[in-house]
Structures are given as structure tokens and as C-alpha cells.
């Protein structure tokens, strides 16, 4: 899969559109989003003295509500066609993206087997908001409602430029990480973190970070590629 992705990334050597960003800039963006994720954890740990295991819903709520504004602000600056679309519009559409993304994540999780009991509803909701912050919110902020762009970036995996790569790879990383994070759940180790959605969250966050690193690497490779092609 990874190779296929890379190949497709290499193939897509279209002209870089607006809102481009260097690898260094991407690194700074990732650093900030990672930092605020850490802030979310810190807030939960030391201000509310909860963590994912003891109170998943509250912790997840803190995580996504801290991360969401950061992601929205950063990616709104990187939005496509900034001359056509104001910053506030980008923020507005990313709020819509947050909600619809959460709905889609929740439905996907339920079809994969997430528990649907009454006591799990808040956890599932907050988890899907976090997933949405990782996946849909940056995409809506950057791409807006353009279906063709969405189709090109997410379905065909042909991102053009570094920004779309920054949206695409960590989003897939979070989904795949969450998928793998679900595997320890049925094991009979009787650990508290095996409950839904704790280990899926860890998996998603881990996958998100791996995706960020991977996209950084891709950007570096891609830039060399592009330079070659330009030359």
C-alpha cells in the first residue's frame, strides 16, 4: 500500500497550487499540532486529573477541543484558493466538517464492531470527534467542499503539493492506526486500557504521528523528485 501511495505521489507531478508549504513549514505545523495534543493530555492529567483510562469521555473531549482550534487555524491558513475564500469561511466549513466527519467515523466504527450500548455513546461520540479532527477537519479546511478535490486526494490518493500530502497521509495514518489499535481489545489480559475506545485512541494517535513523519519524509523525497523534473 505504502509503495503504491508513493508511486502515485511520484506520478502526480502537477504544478504546485497555492497554499504551498516547505517541508520545514510542515514540520512546524506538525510540531504545533503535536504540542497541542500534548497540551490536551497535560490539561486532562493535571487540571482535571483524569486520563484516557479513568475517564475516556472527558479526556477525549479535552483532547479534541484543544486540538480542534489549532488544526482549524493552521490549516485555514493553508487553504486552497485563499483569494476566493475568506479565513472565517474556512473556519465555518471546518466546523461542519468536524460534525459530518464525526458522524462518518462513528458509523464506520459501529460497522467494524464498536459497542453500541447506552453507556458507550458518549465515548463513541468523543472518539469520533477526535478522529474527525485528525482526518476530516484539516481536509475541509484546506479543500473546502470541492468534491473533485476530495475525490482526487482521498479516493485516488493523488495529492498535488505538500499541503494535500499533509492532509492525506496523517489522516490515513490515523485510520490505519485505529484499525490496528482495535486488535488488543478482545484479549483477556483484563487491562483497563483494553476497553473501547482507549486502545483505538492510542492506535489512532500513534498512526497519526507515524503518518506525519511519513509525510515529512515523502515531502523531502518528493521535493528532490520535483527538482529533478523541473531541471
Amino acid at each position, binding site marked *: 500500500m505504502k509503495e503504491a501511495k508513493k508511486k502515485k505521489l511520484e506520478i502526480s507531478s502537477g504544478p504546485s497550487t497555492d497554499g504551498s508549504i516547505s517541508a520545514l513549514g510542515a514540520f512546524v505545523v506538525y510540531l504545533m499540532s503535536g504540542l497541542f495534543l500534548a497540551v490536551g493530555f497535560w490539561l486532562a492529567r493535571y487540571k482535571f486529573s483524569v486520563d484516557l483510562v479513568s475517564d475516556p469521555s472527558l479526556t477525549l473531549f479535552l483532547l479534541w477541543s484543544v486540538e480542534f482550534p489549532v488544526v482549524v487555524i493552521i490549516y485555514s491558513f493553508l487553504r486552497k484558493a485563499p483569494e476566493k475564500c475568506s479565513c472565517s469561511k474556512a473556519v465555518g466549513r471546518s466546523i461542519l466538517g468536524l460534525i459530518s466527519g464525526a458522524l462518518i467515523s462513528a458509523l464506520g466504527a*459501529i460497522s*467494524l*464492531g464498536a459497542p*453500541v450500548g447506552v453507556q458507550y455513546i458518549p465515548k463513541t461520540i468523543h472518539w469520533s470527534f477526535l478522529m474527525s479532527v485528525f482526518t476530516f477537519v484539516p481536509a475541509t479546511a484546506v479543500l473546502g467542499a470541492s468534491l473533485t478535490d476530495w475525490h482526487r486526494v482521498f*479516493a485516488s490518493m493523488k495529492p498535488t503539493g505538500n499541503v494535500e500530502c499533509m492532509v492525506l497521509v496523517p489522516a490515513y495514518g490515523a485510520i490505519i492506526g485505529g484499525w490496528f489499535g482495535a486488535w488488543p481489545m478482545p484479549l*483477556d489480559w483484563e487491562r483497563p486500557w483494553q476497553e473501547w475506545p482507549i486502545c483505538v485512541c492510542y492506535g489512532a494517535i500513534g498512526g497519526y504521528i507515524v503518518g506525519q513523519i511519513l509525510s515529512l519524509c515523502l515531502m523531502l523525497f518528493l521535493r528532490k523528485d520535483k527538482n529533478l523534473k523541473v531541471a
Partner: protein
Amino acid sequence: METHPKRINKWIPLSFLLIHSVAILIFTRGFLLTRTELPFHSTCSDASLSPCLSPNPPIHHSNSNQNQPKCWTKPVVDRVVIIVLDALRIDFLAPSAFFPEAKPWMDKLTVLQNLAFGNESSAKIFKAFADPPTTSLQRLKGLTTGGLPTFVDVGNSFGAPAIVEDNFINQLVLNGKRLVMMGDDTWTQLFPNQFQKSYPFPSFNVKDLDTVDNGCIEHLFPTLYKDDWDVLIAHFLGVDHAGHIFGVDSMPMINKLEQYNTVLERVVDILESQAGPGGVHENTMLIVMGDHGQTLNGDHGGGTAEEVETTMFAMSTMKHTPSVPPEFDTSSCKQDPEGKQICISSIEQLDFAATLSALLGISFPFGSIGHVNPELYALGSSSLNLDNTKQPAVKEWLKSYVNVLCVNAWQVKRYIDVYSNSSVVGFSSDDMSRISNLYSAAEHHWSNSVKHILMYNDGNEDSTNTSALKAQIAAYLKFFSSVAELARSKWTEFNLSLMITGFGILVISLILQSLAIVHGDNKPYAVSSGLSTGAAFTLFIVLIRACSFLSNSYILEEGKVANFLLATTGLIKLRYSVMRKTMRKEAFVFLAMVSVLRVSIDIGLTKQAATSQFMSSSPTWMLGLAPDHPALTYAIEIAPILSVAALICVLYVAIARTHSEGIWKYVTVGSMLSYFLIALLWASESKIFGFDGLLQVIGGRNIIPQTVYVIGLVQLFLLASAHMFCSGKDKNWGSRTVALVSACSSPVILLSGKQGSMLALAYLLAGYCIMRLEGVERRTKSDGQNKFSKLDSVCVVQWSLLSVCMFFASGHWCAFDGLRYGAAFVGFDEFVLIRQAILLTIETFGFSIILSVFGLPLLIPSHGEKRHQLFQMYMLYGVISATTVTATILCVTIHRRHLMVWGLFAPKFVFDVVGLILTDVLICLASAFYL
């Protein structure tokens, strides 16, 4: 390419069926230890057939003329109190001096230790050896039958756990003894009618440490004062549960042991206070025993030393027990901290039934292969001394013991002979002749010398007499030990080389099958990147599923795992369909159906958790509605009938669409009629529709199901004959498949009950989506309709996962209590083994194997080179099934000494193996029909 070898295609599935059968047969011979339960019972009068002396030897005529009935042996104790402490480790009871290091849980049952090592010792502590499987149910069965229960005890106990073999409890009842039971309700499951009084308490809640124990204690003390019983059984569960939850080294465990100490102290006080002449407990034996041990984590079931070593304490309320001659003394002694010599003896649990039968003077259970333990027998034999004080106690005891052993040996030999003649898999002739030689040697010695010593006791030549008796006992013990050794090797030891051979053959067949698929792909256009990603993904999913069987947790939640993987394939397909901008609706419907199935699987899991000993029942989902809400009941009544109506519509559309002619059409119409009858049956069973009177009108509720079966059989017959007589002419693939699947589906839906029709509808929809999504990842707008006639492995994997999900969604799971025995009696009232077994098989594997194998051709796109592709699909389906079975077999081999081997892995193995053979057979039939 149509000229590809047609003949061979039909033989390949058959050859794989044969290879799989051979591999499974070999593996099963090594793994599934089976024993045939014999229906025979011992009776008192049998003993006259033995060469032994009757229990009233002439010598005692003068002073034993009390007219109490005698059976095989002379009773030596009047009453027995058996206190079973579940999972009692040897180091809970034996003094810490016997172990390298003192642990906090040792030396808690001090009252028993003091009794056993006190000066006037009529009590003893034994190290008791249990035989695996060390689970409570199997152990209680072993203790009472005196045999070695295996995983599959072939017998008449079809479904019910009640013991039908002859056993100690049964013999007690036959001999007029009165039994009282309290505690673990496993006893009342095993012996539903034998107890005169019983106070059972539910044992399944492992987290509850006290209910069973408190109930036991509440009834134990009042009962001890009464005289309306002969044998009392009290089964405490606290230690077992504390071990399961907290482990051995924990405060709850120590508290439990201390509680037991006070309970036992009171029991002993009561017994001793009533032990005087004429008291209720003048000649009572108290036995405190564990049924098995446990590991430090509280697990048990396997055969490790910690699990099989348990303990037994025995005490007689009569003092002055004879000491056992040193030749037969098994005790091992240590110095206790104060320098006193303390000894514990050892006993096999196998010998428990025989010894207690001898003590109480009842006939031995027919299938017991244990022998009367000399030390335990000696503890109870103090009453012998009262009969005859002329002779030294040891000599008197020896005589009595040798006669008991004689009848015991005769009984064991009789069982071995009968078993070998009548069981499914008997003993080898070498073993039998060795045992017969040992027995005849012992018997020869008996009739030549010992019998005379016993009968004409002239009192002289004491030393030669004693040595002759001892030699006789030694000869018998040799016979017993060789019988026990043979039985253990037959019934408790796995044959690893057979298991590995079977596994190896399966692996080879997997490789061959994969080669058969790849060989078929040897075409110019087959090599493309699309196929290789699909194949890699297939391999990934199949391997993940196979690896998941290596853990017991994933086996327990197999339905959820399959559903998770199915949903994953669905999501991948969704992604591709969005990418290609086709079939998006189908992809969403597929995911919706998967979600429906997962809810159904969840319901099935809660049912499983209610009976499984390994799962905690956690209701993962709840409806806001109360279960008896009128709207809900109405929906439950009406939804199945609506689904049947929908199925009829689907069939109608299928007939109307394919302009097929002739027999296929009529067969499908027959299915519609069957569906209509099923809907009518369900409507008349419910109260809502006002069809209640219908069943009376048509004469009983069996008419409709039987009609459905007959229609199904006629349909199958028509299809088979049509295939035979008009083969070659008919090219209409789709209508043939529809006819066959619909003919099979009506009995399956009928047997599955009301959920069946809804599941069938979900299955149909999901299958339709799989078919539509077939090859979606390779489809591009440019290459249109031409190039995807090659095998799409992902859709076969989806189909196979879907069928696994259907197995779990229809409320089954891989355990024998997951079988729905009720389905075997749909349409029939009386029990005929073969007929009911067929119905049960159809119910169990109907959706997951029968329909899915026959329905596989529906997945083929409507063009391309069909015949060859179908063959490939069947091969691939077979490979997927065989891979999961191979993984199960590997897992069973690795975990053969695992705690859950009998509770979880072995049932899973049986279900998988039966499923694989059935799949292979059906693939043979299907390829004969379709190819």
C-alpha cells in the same frame, strides 16, 4: 480455453476431500481421546460370579449373623461425610514442612493437620493425584465413576450432562443408601434424581465467593445432627472462585481458608460429640478433599503438577485403626519444626470410587478401574477389630483387604474385557494379553493358596500365611497398576506424532490447493498489478484470521473478529467504489448489512456468555425499550413474516428476469411455495394474526414442516435428475444456481426459526452487494466491461467471511451447548438419531456452509470464461476454509495442555473439522452439479 481438462476438474475436489479426511482422521486419533461409555451396571448378585469369597466368609458365621444385607464386600463404615473443597491445592492442607518454603497460604487448615498428626491418629492426610482434564465436571465424573473421563465420552448422554455410566452415587442409591447434597449445583446436573435431599447453589458466577459456601454452611450443621442420611456431600466453591479472581497469593484466598478452618473445626466437633457408642456418628468417616488443584493464578484444567496435585483428608470417628504393613504404605515423612515425625500418604483419585464402595460395602461401579487404597481402607477398618479379637489386627485386616482386592480385580478385569469387546476403539490385543496374564497369575495364586488360608483359618503358620497374603496383594496391585497405566495412555495422553502427521498432511494439502489455483491462472492476461494487490489483500486477511486462532480470546470472540475483517473489506471496497465512481450505493448497503450482522452477533455473544465459563457476560448493547413492550413484541412477530414475503418477491423477480424455461423454473416455484408455508406456520404460531385455529384444522403443527422437507427433497431430486439427463444442453447458469440455493434455503430458514428469514434477507442483500462490487478495484471507466473475467479473490474472501459471520449471527458458537437441539425436533416429535442429527447439522451449518457453498456461483459476473473461473473460486473457497482449520489444528496442538483445551479449543476443533469436511463434500457436489 474452454477445452481445459473438464474431467480432471471434477476429480480435484474429491481428492482434496480425501486428503483432508485422512489428515483429520490421523490428527483426531492423536488428539481427541475418546472413550465409550458402557451402559452396564454392577449389581450385588454379580459377585457370585467372581472367584472370591462372599463377604460373609464361613469363618465369621458365628458372630456376624446380623441380618443386614451384604453386597460385594463387608461394610466397614456406616456413614460418610464428603466435604469437597473445589481446587484445593496440596499445599493448602499439607504442612509447610513438606514444601521448600513456607508461603502465606500454607498451614491455614490447622484443625485437619492437628487431627492427622495427633497422637491418637485415626486420621490421615493424603496427597491425591487427579487425572487431566482437571475441570470440576470431569473430575466429579471421574471421582464417582472411578474412570478417566475424556473429552468425548461416547455415550447416550446426548446434550445433557447427567452421568449415565454406572457410578458410585448410583450404586449408593441402588443399595438403599440415602444421600444428601449441598453446594455446587454441578452435582445436581450430573445426578439429577439420585439425591434424597439437595441444596444446590448456582456455581457459574465466578466473582461470587460466598453464595455457595454460605448456603453449604447453613445446611451442613443441622444436617450433621440428623440421622436420615448415609452419605453427605458438601461442595464448597469459594477457594476455586477466589483463585480464579484473585489468585492463590491473595487475602481473599487466605480468608476463605481460614473460614474453612472454622467450619471444619465445627464439623469435627459435631462428629466427635456424636461418636460415642450408639451415637449418630459412631462409625462415620469424614473425608475432606479437593477435586483438583490450581496454579498460582487460579487456573486449572490442564495436566501440570500444580493442577493435578490435590489433597484428601480422611478421618474415622472410631479410634484404633489398624496400621498398614510397610509394604503397602505410601506415606512420605518429614520432620516438623518441633522435630516430630509427620507423614502424608498418597492416593489416586481414580481409586476413590472403588475405595469408598468397599468401605460402604456396596458393589463397585461397573466402569471403575481403580483399586481399593490400602491406607484409606485401613482408616475405615477399625470396626473389623470388634468382630474378632483373637487375631492381631494387622492379620485380620490383611485378610479382609485381600478379599476386597480379589473382588476388585475381578470387577476391573470384567470391565476391561467388556470394554474391549464393545467399544468403538478398543485396546490393542498385546495390551489385553499382558493384562490377562497378570490377572490370571494373580488369580492362580489366589485359588491355589490364599483362598484356603482364608477359608480354613487354622491359626498356625502365621508367618507363611501372612507372606502369602502379602504376595497376593502385591500381585493384585501389579495388575491394577498396569491396567491404570494402559487406561491412562489410552484416555489421557495425546499422541503427538499422530497429531503432527495430521497437521503436516493438511499443510501439504494447502500447498497443493494453492498450486491448483495458481495453475489455473496460467493465462497471458492474468498477470497484472490489480490481481496482485487483490491477492495480497486476500492473503493478508486470511492470514490475520488464521493467526487470530492462536489466542483463546480471539476464538471466544471469533464472530466479532470475522465481522471486523468483513467490515474492513467492505470499507476497502467502498474506497475503491468511490474512487471508480461506481457501485457506491452497493458499498454502503453492504456496510449497513455488516452492521446488522454485527448486532446479531452481539446478541449471540450475550447468549454464549450466559453459559460459557470463560466469558463474563457484559451486555454491550441495550435497547431503550422494555423487553415486553407491545410495539417490540409486535415487531418481533411481524418482521420474520415480512422478510419471508420479501424473499418470495425476490424469487419471483429472479424467475421473471431470467427467461428460463423448464425444470429450473418449477423448482424455484416450489421454493416459493415452501416459503409461503413457512410464513403460514409462523403466522399461525403467533397470537396476533388470529390464525390460531389453523393448526388444528390442518392437523397438528408437524404437517407444515414435514411438507417443507418433502418439497425440498423433491426439488433436490428433480435438480439431480435434470442435471443427469440434460447435462450439456443447459447453459443457463444463474437459474440453476437460484434453483439449487432456493431449494436448500427453505429447510434452513424453517429450522433457524424466526430470525432465519431476516438473516436470509440480510445474507441475500450482502451477497448481492459482494457480487456487484466484484472486481470494483480493477474496474476503470476506460477498460469498461471486457477484462475482468479473471478470479477476484477479494470477493471470495468476503463471501467466506460473510458465511462465518452468518454462523455467529444466527446464534451459534463453537461449543456443544451452542447447538440448538430444539431445531432437531421441528416437524418431528420422536427421536430418531440419524434424522435428528441431519436436521441439527442443517440448522447449524445451513447458512454458513450449505447455502454459501451452493451460492458461490452467484458471485460470478455475468460474462467471461465461467467454467474455469468457477472451479478456481471453489478451490479458493476450499483453501480459505482449510487454512482456518489448519490454524485451529496448530493452535490445538500448541495449547493441548492449556487450561481451556477441553472447554474451548476442543469444541472449536470439532466444529471446524466438521465444517471443513462438510465444505469439501459440498464443494464436490457443487462442482459435479455446476461444472
